[in-house]
């Protein structure tokens, strides 16, 4: 389990993290979302032991991350701007990683060579940005981490390679129980892979839920009322309503069956629950707590 509690980090007086807390259950894929400058990369740098928090705790499996090489052997990370030595080849960097990570798997390295199809003797600097990202995944996954921390991991990858990479990560999660924390400013990107989601802004984790919780707690209902009901009855607990022709789309904070039960009293011609996107869930969740959602979800 990854656990950060009340983490505060100041940069020259600016509170980059302002009591951020998050919990990533073991074996889960946690999506950390937020706009630029929300503090996602900052908290990730705490989780990987780069930064030391001014206050609060950052732990994995109950151990402090800071200056804990034994724990860090289990952590692998891909930052948004992955660093490699100049002018190293893929193979050079592989040797370097192998010297630090005791579980580094050469066997996997050879297998992934087929997946990424990058000449390991090529100088990394001469590869395209997307290919460099692939090298980062290649080497990081060979470290066989228990904790995989990814900061904007698929930026620069083409759609096919994105799917490939996620497939590899999901494979690790299912086979090895790897705990994954992935940050993004794009909810749509995470929708298919995450089972937990946290949202950050202004140095705080505003909200974190499992996907199941989110979907149970909110519903999007498409309703066609009889002709005498032209507006949504005010008695209904609607977070948001819109109308296209005679079809009303209602967002309600309750599960699907309760929502259908609630509108039944108005003899609807049609009442059908449709799946909410993650983006919609967060818009309405945060809108409900008086938050300027449009600033978070781009």
């Amino acid at each position, binding site marked *: 389990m990854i656990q950060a509690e009340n983490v505060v980090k100041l940069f020259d007086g600016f509170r980059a993290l302002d009591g951020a807390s998050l919990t990533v259950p073991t074996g889960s894929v946690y999506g950390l979302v937020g706009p630029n400058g929300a503090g996602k990369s900052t908290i990730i740098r705490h989780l990987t032991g780069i930064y030391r928090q001014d206050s609060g705790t950052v732990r994995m499996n109950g*151990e402090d991350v800071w*200056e804990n090489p034994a724990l860090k052997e289990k952590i692998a990370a891909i930052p948004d701007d992955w660093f490699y030595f100049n002018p190293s080849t893929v193979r050079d960097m592989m040797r370097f990683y192998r010297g630090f990570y005791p579980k580094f798997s050469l066997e996997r390295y050879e297998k992934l060579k087929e997946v990424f199809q990058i000449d390991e003797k090529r100088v990394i600097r001469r590869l395209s940005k997307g290919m460099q990202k692939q090298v980062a995944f290649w080497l990081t996954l060979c470290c066989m981490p228990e904790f995989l921390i990814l900061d904007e991991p698929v930026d620069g990858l083409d759609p096919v390679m994105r799917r490939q990479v996620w497939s590899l990560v999901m494979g690790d999660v299912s086979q090895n129980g790897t705990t994954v924390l992935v940050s993004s400013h794009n909810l749509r990107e995470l929708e298919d892979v995450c089972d937990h989601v946290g949202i950050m802004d202004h140095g705080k984790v505003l909200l974190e839920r499992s996907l199941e919780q989110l979907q149970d707690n909110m519903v999007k209902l498409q309703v066609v009322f009889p002709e005498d009901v032209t507006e949504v009855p005010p008695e209904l607990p609607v977070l948001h309503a819109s109308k296209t022709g005679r079809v009303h789309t209602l967002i309600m904070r309750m599960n699907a069956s309760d929502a259908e039960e609630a509108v039944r009293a108005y003899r609807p011609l049609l009442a059908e629950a449709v799946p909410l996107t993650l983006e919609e869930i967060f818009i309405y969740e945060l809108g409900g707590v008086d938050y300027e959602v449009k600033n978070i979800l781009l």
Partner: protein
Amino acid sequence: MKSRTSFFNPTLYRKNLTRFWTLWGLTAFFGALVPISGITMRLNGLLDMNAAEFALLYYDGVCYFAPAATLCYAILCAQAVWSYLYNARSVGMMHTLPISREGLFVTNFLSGLTMVAIPWAVVGVLCVILSLMCGAFSWGPLFLTVLCVLAEGVLYFSTATAAAFVTGNVFALPAFYFLFHFLAPMLDALITTFSSNMIFGLSTRVYTGVVDWLSPTVYIMKNVSPNSVYVERPIPGHPDITESVLQSVTLEKAWLIGVYMLVGLALLGVAYALYRYRKSECAGEVIAMRWGRPVFRYGISALFALGGGQLLYILLFNSFDIDESPYQVLPLIFCMFLSGAIGYYATSMLLAKTSRVFKGSLRGLSIVAAGCVAVCCVVGFDLLGVARRVPSADSLKYIRLYTANNTYYLLPGDDDAVIEELRDVHKAIIADRDYIQNELKNDSQKGEIDFTKNAYVTFRVCYYLKNGLSVYRDYFLWLDKDRMAEPGTYDNALDRFINSTEMKLRRLRFNDPRFKVEHGNISLQLRDDGFELSSRELEEILYAISEDTKAGAWGQYDWFENDASTYAVYLNFWYGVQDSMIPRSIDNIAVYLRPGMTSTINCLKKLGYLKDSDLITRAEMQKIWEERDKMLNPSDFSEEIDPSEITLEDIVYPSDEVSTETAAVFPQTAPVTEPVTNPNAPDSQDSSPQTPAESSAASSAN
């Protein structure tokens, strides 16, 4: 639970060496060129060195070349191995790796040190090969050299490492490193120049050297030196001709390098502590520690104010006339503030990484202005009484006085009366401060100076106090013959003091138990020849001079004397100080032969050193030289020179305490030779070593 802390990672060590192989490889290549050329010369039969010559070569390298070379090379190695600290991406990657900061520190330090050592190892191995080829291999000097070079490597790389953790910017690193190594001498020069132009009595000082020990490079180069012993040997096949052969070499004060290495290791500890608390996010910052930023900002502002302020003052107000005119307080405040403000904003821009630093800078600028005003006022108006200070007689351990081309030591007890007179002279000089400064300031407007009525004189006094401190004052005085007759003027007080019976006797140090003449020589300038004098000869000559002194032919110091009337013959005597109160020192006096010194002339003739043909005045000698030059180069000699304008300085190197110091260090560095004695002298058994300091002998005309 934390576990498995490793202090060394071989992968990182190898990576550093392979990443930066071009750095150490090229350095080793260029370093190797010297011994390789030696090997080539040896193979061609052009080089033959003995073991002592190899030792001298090694030690010269340790003392002079290695400090300078390692100073420059170590910073490049530090920039290489610590480069990851200065980039957010690289510092992120390195600190994500499963290795503690201790591990990173130790591994990177060792790899950097290896990079420093590799070129030296290559050069060392090649030197050993060369020495084996010459049949001159010797373990001792090699072992000491290896130790010293390693110690210097540790010293310089440790200081570079310490500098690396102060900053977060790879370009600031060498600046801090060199600042660390040379800040003390630089401040010494700046403060000394400042005070010498502001404080009356420190007028001729440029650099004191009292803080040289804070600059390892300067201190090692000045204090660690090879001591070579030479012997005179006949050249094979030419029994009458001898050559100097290096017999043995020792490395003096090599322990200093060890001490500095320990200092380097202490700084390494500081660097490690800084790393422990260093924040990764400071990558890119000029100063890594938050608390260091005001120190940097105001420290650099102060340096700018002190250095740039003086430069600006000289440019704008002084017309480069720094030796003659003391700084004026108000213009200096303006210049210092202007320079300090430039330094303040420059550092603010570096720290903020933007040029928009003017808003809200009033407080900082006020501090800079207040500092400039405070320093200039305190020093310029002598608020601390430094310029007026004359130490009380009861606080003195001893006094060293240099004036009238002579050095005098005065001890409380024996010399109480003389000390009191000296203090009175000093007080008279201080009282006439404005007059002295005005005379020197208006020097350029005086037109042609009549040196039969006026003279420039140095009055340099150092009071060594019982508390271990010393008060040093150095005045450049303008003497006027008319004022000299007026009681109450410093001119009068100085003349009465120097030409008092007591001081005349002291000038020769004859029968003074505190001083023993240790060696001396005679210089015959017309012949361009000179001879060392034996101790018996010295005694005889000194006795003869004392007879002339009693007869009034020598001893009276004439401030306005025309040097051209003295003979082109002078004697130099070096005295050892016997008194336990005064530190071991060798002082010298030069006696110029003049008409009327019959006892001395007869004595020298009797000893076989002097012929009648040597007894020509300097003016006559100058005429002879001119005639010779006219004959040799008639086209180059178009202007007549008035012999009356000839001064001693035109002919010989001027006397100063420098020559005394040269003589003082000579016994440690001079080759031990067979004595060079006067072949005509009847008894030249006892002799002293011939010294290279002869050429810089003093020129006091008495």
